[in-house]
C-alpha cells in the first residue's frame, strides 16, 4: 500500500466525493469530516514513512498514460512537496470541520473533496502534463465554490479568477510543449517527466523564453504584481472556506511551481531574471501592503496581505541559495497556515454580522475576547513575529536574498514594517476602542466548532515557529539537491557564481552537524 500511497492520497477524496452523492444531506458534514480526517491521517503516514535523509523523490509511482507522446502518470514527493501535501489535507480537514455554510452543504463538501484531489495531485505530480491536469482542474471546484456560495459579485469574481489563471496556464502549457519538444530534439524521445527535463541543459536564450512562458502561468497563480487583481475579488467574494483554501493552498501552487520547474530547469534564466523578479517582489511587498492599509474591508486586508507575503516567498525563491529557497518553501507553509487561519477568523465574524467592513466593528475585543486573542496571535504571526511560523520563513527568505543584493533586501525588508502597519491598524479598528455599534454588543464569542478549526492552527503556527526543524530539515535536504543541480547545470559564469556550489561547502555542513 505504501507503494501507491500517493495515488491513494490523490484519488481517495475523489472516490469519497463520488460516494458522497449517496450520503444524505444531514450526515454529509460528518461524512466530509471523516473522509478528510482519513485523508489527513494518510498524509501523516506519508510523512512518517518519508525518509528525511533522502533528498530525492520518494514514493515514486509510474504508469504509462500516453506513452506515444511521452506522458506518464508519474508521482513522487520530496521534502518540498511533502509538507504542502500535508498542508492541503490538513486545511481541507480544518475547512470542512469548521464549515458554517448552510446552503447546499452536500454540494459544497463534494466540491471540496474534489478540490482536495486536485491539490494533492498538483504537488505530487512529477509529470508536467499530470501536473498541468491537476493544476487546471483545481480551478473548476474553486470556480464553483466562489460562484455558488460567494458574495454579491461572485460571478464576476469567479469568472475573473478562472479566466485569468486559465489564460496564464495556457501559456505555460505552450512552454511545457516547447520543453518536451526540446527534449525530443535532444534525445529523440518524447517526455514530460520533470525529472527527465532536469537533465536537459538548454542554451540560455531558450531558457529565457521558456522561463518567461512558465513565468506567466506561475505569476498569475501566485499572484504576482501586476497580475494580482483577480485575487482581491476572489477573496472578497468567496465564502470563508473558499478563501481559506485559496489562500492556504492554491496560491502555493504558483510558488511551488517556481521551485519545481523554473529554478532547476532554467538556472541561467533564473539568474538572468533574478533582479527583475526581485523588483516585482518588492513592488508586491510594499505596494500591496499599502493597498492593504487603505482597505475598508477586513477580508480585503487579509487578501492583499497574502499578495504581500507572496512577494517575500518569491524573493526567497529567487535568492537561489539554500537558505532563501528553504525559507521560501517554509514560508509557503507558514503563509498557508496563517492566512488560512486569518480567513477562517474573518469568516467567524462574518457569520455573526454578515459584514466585513471594519467600520462596522470596533471594540470587539471586549465582546469576543477569545476571538480577539486568536486573531491577535494570528495577526502577530502574519506580521512575522519570531517564534511564530511566519518568521522562520520570512527571516530565511530575506536572509537568503541578502546574499544576492543588499539594497533589494533592505527594501524588501520594509515588509516587516508595512506589514505591521496595515495589520495593526486593521486590528485596532476592529477590536480596540469601545463598542459603538449596537449590533456588536451581544456578539457570541467563538464557539466550539470554530475553536476546533482554529486551535490546531494556533498550535501549528507556534509549534513550527518554535521548532521548525522537523519540517525544515527535509525541505533543506531537497532544496540542497535542487541548488546543487542548478549550480551544475548553470552555464553562464554569472549563474555559476550566484548559485552556490554546495559540494564545496559540505565541510561546513558536517561541521554544523557536529554541533
Amino acid at each position, binding site marked *: 500500500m505504501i507503494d501507491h500511497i500517493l495515488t491513494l492520497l490523490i484519488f481517495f477524496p475523489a472516490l469519497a466525493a463520488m460516494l458522497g452523492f449517496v450520503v444524505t444531506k444531514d450526515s454529509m458534514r460528518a461524512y466530509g469530516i471523516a473522509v478528510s480526517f482519513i485523508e489527513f491521517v494518510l498524509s501523516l503516514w506519508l510523512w512518517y514513512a518519508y525518509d528525511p535523509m533522502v533528498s530525492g523523490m520518494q514514493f515514486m509511482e509510474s504508469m*504509462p*498514460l*500516453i*506513452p*506515444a*507522446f511521452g506522458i506518464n502518470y508519474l508521482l513522487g514527493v520530496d521534502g518540498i512537496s511533502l509538507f504542502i501535501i500535508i498542508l492541503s489535507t490538513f486545511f481541507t480537514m480544518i475547512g470542512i470541520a469548521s464549515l458554517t455554510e448552510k446552503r447546499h452543504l452536500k*454540494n459544497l463538501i463534494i466540491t471540496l473533496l474534489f478540490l482536495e484531489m486536485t491539490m494533492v495531485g498538483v504537488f505530487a505530480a512529477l509529470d508536467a*502534463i499530470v501536473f*498541468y*491536469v491537476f493544476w*487546471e*482542474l483545481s*480551478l*473548476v471546484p474553486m*470556480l*464553483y465554490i466562489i*460562484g*455558488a456560495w460567494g458574495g454579491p459579485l*461572485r*460571478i464576476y469574481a*469567479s*469568472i475573473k479568477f*478562472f*479566466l485569468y489563471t*486559465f*489564460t496564464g496556464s*495556457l*501559456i505555460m*502549457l*505552450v512552454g511545457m*510543449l*516547447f520543453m*518536451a*519538444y526540446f527534449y*525530443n530534439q535532444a534525445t529523440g524521445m518524447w517526455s514530460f517527466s520533470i525529472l527527465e527535463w532536469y537533465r536537459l541543459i538548454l542554451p540560455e536564450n531558450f531558457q529565457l523564453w521558456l522561463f518567461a512562458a512558465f513565468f506567466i502561468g506561475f505569476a498569475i497563480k501566485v499572484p504576482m504584481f501586476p497580475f494580482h487583481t483577480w485575487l482581491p475579488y476572489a477573496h472578497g467574494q468567496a465564502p470563508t472556506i473558499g478563501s481559506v483554501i485559496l489562500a492556504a493552498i492554491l496560491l502555493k501552487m504558483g510558488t511551488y511551481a517556481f521551485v519545481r520547474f523554473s529554478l532547476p530547469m532554467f538556472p541561467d534564466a533564473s539568474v538572468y531574471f533574478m533582479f527583475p523578479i526581485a523588483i516585482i517582489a518588492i513592488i508586491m511587498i510594499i505596494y500591496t501592503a499599502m493597498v492593504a492599509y487603505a482597505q475598508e474591508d477586513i477580508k480585503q486586508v487579509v487578501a492583499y496581505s497574502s499578495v504581500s507575503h507572496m512577494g517575500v516567498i518569491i524573493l526567497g525563491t529567487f535568492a537561489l541559495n539554500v537558505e532563501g529557497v528553504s525559507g521560501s518553501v517554509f514560508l509557503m507553509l507558514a503563509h498557508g497556515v496563517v492566512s488560512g487561519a486569518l480567513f477562517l477568523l474573518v469568516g467567524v465574524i462574518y457569520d455573526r454580522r454578515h459584514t466585513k467592513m471594519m467600520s462596522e466593528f470596533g471594540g470587539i475585543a471586549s465582546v469576543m475576547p477569545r476571538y480577539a486573542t486568536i486573531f491577535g496571535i494570528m495577526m502577530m504571526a502574519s506580521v512575522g513575529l519570531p517564534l511564530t511560523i511566519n518568521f522562520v520563513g520570512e527571516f530565511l527568505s530575506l536572509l537568503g536574498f541578502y546574499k544576492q543584493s543588499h539594497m533589494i533586501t533592505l527594501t524588501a525588508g520594509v515588509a516587516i514594517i508595512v506589514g505591521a502597519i496595515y495589520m495593526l491598524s486593521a486590528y485596532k479598528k476592529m477590536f480596540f476602542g469601545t463598542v459603538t455599534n449596537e449590533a456588536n454588543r451581544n456578539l457570541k464569542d467563538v464557539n466550539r466548532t470554530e475553536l476546533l478549526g482554529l486551535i490546531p492552527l494556533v498550535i501549528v503556527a507556534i509549534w513550527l515557529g518554535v521548532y521548525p526543524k522537523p519540517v525544515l530539515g527535509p525541505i533543506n535536504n531537497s532544496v540542497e539537491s535542487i541548488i546543487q543541480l542548478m549550480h551544475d547545470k548553470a552555464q553562464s559564469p554569472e549563474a555559476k557564481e550566484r548559485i552556490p556550489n554546495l559540494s564545496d561547502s559540505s565541510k561546513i555542513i558536517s561541521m554544523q552537524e557536529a554541533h
Partner: protein
Amino acid sequence: MLEPIHVSLASLNLATLAPMLIAIVGALVILVIDMAKGGLHKSLYVMLSLLFLLLDLGSLIDFAGLFLKNGTILGFFDVMLMDGLAILAQIIIVVGSMLFIPLALTSKRFHEYNYPEYFALFLFMISGFQFMVATDNLILIFIGLETASLALYTLIALHNRAKSFEAAVKYFTMGALAAGFFAFGSMIFYAISGSVEINQIATVLAEDHYSNIGYILIAVTFMIAAIGFKISMVPFHTWTPDVYEGSSAALAGYMSIVPKIAGFVVAMRLFEFLVHSGVAWLQVILYIGVVITMTAANVWALVQSDVKRMLAYSSISHAGFVMAAILIGTTQANTGLFLYWALFSFTNLGAFTMLWVNRQKNLLPGQSSDHPYEKFSGMVKTMPMGAVMMGLFMLSLAGIPPFGLFWGKLYMIGSAVSAGYTGLALIMALNSAIAGYYYLKLIVFMFMKEPMVGYEKMYFMNASLSLKTIIGIAVVGTIFAVFAVNPLLKVITLFVYNSGY
C-alpha cells in the same frame, strides 16, 4: 473504331466501394420497406440505419486491416482511394452518424422522424461523405459533396418550422455559390495540369516547378472559398450559426462534426502538397485564415445569448483550430487533427444532445430562440446530474484537462510547437482562454444562478432511453478520453503516416 475495353474485375477492386454501397443499399432498403408498408414506427428505421451503419463500420475496419497490411488501396480506375485518411475519416463519419441516429428516438414527436425518407436520405448523405473522402478525384469529390449536401438541406428543412426552412434556404443558396467556386477552382486546376485528380495535379505542378503560380493561386483561392464554406472558415462561415439554430439540436451537433471532417480531408488532400512545396502565399493565407477563424468566431461566441448559437460559433472556432493542422502539415499535426476531431465528436455531440433532450416545442415566453441561457439557470438545483454532465461537456470544450478535448488541444498545440509555429501555438492557447469565457457562462447559469420559476420541467422533457444512452456514451468518452488517447494516437499516426501525410 472503338476498341473493346478489357478490364479485369479484380483490378477494379470493387470492394473499395463496399462501405458506401452498404449505406446506399441501406437507404434503398428503407425506401422499399416504406413502399411495401407505410406508417411504420421510426424506431424500425432507426435500428435499420444503425444496423447498416454497423455493417459499414465493419467493412471500414476490414479496410483498416487491409490498409495496414498492404498500404493504400486504389480501386475502380484509381477513382477510389482508400488510404489512411479516407479510412479514418470514414470511421469518424460513421461513428458520428451512429451516435446521431438514435437521437431520433425522442419522447416528443418531431416532424422529420415521421418520414422514412428521412432515414434514407440520411444514409445517402453518409455515402456522399464517404465518397467525398475516399477519392482524390475532384469530380467524385464534387458529386459526393453535392449528394451529401442536398440530402442535408432536405434533412434540415424536414424539421418543418419557419426557422428550419430559413436555415435550409440559406444553407442551400450559399452552398450553391460554394459549389460554383468549387467548380471554377477545379476548372483552373484542370487548365494548368490537365487532370482532375489531386495526385496528378500535384505531380504536374511539381514538374513545372509551379511556374503557373498565378493560376495556382487563383485556383487555390476558389478552392479555399469552397472548402472554407464547408468547414466554415471566416468569412465563409456566416451560414453556420443560422443553420445550426434553425435545425434540430441533434442535427446541428451532427453538422458540427461529420461534414467538417469530410471537408478537412479534402482540404488536406488539396492544400498540403501546396503547403509543403513552399507556396508561401498559401501558408500566409492559411495562417491568417486559421487565426481569424479561431479568434473571430470566439469573439462572436462571447456575445451570443443562445446556447445553440454559442455552440455554433464555438464549433467554428474549433474548426479553425483544427485547420491549423493543414497549415502545419506535419504528420504530427495531421494526426492531431484526427485525434482532435474524434475527441471533439464525443464532446460536441454530447453537448448538442443535452440541448436536444430539453427541446421544448414552443419558445419560452419572452425568448426568441430555443435555448437561451436563461433556460439553464439553476439547473444544478433542479437537475443536478444533467447540469454536471452539461458542465462537463463545456469544460471539455474549453480544454480543461483531463477531459476529452484537452488532449486534442495538447497534441495540436504540441504539433504547432514542434513545427516551429510558436506564434500560432500561442494564439491557439490564448484563444482557448477566450473561449473559456462563454463556456463558463453556461456553467455560471447552470451552477450559480437561481432557477427560473416555472421552467423547472424544461429539462429532460424530450429525453428517452436512447438519448440518455448517447449522453452516457459521450460522458464516458469525455471523462475517460485520457485512456483512449494513446491507442488512438498510435493508430492514427500509423494511418496518417502510411498515407504519406
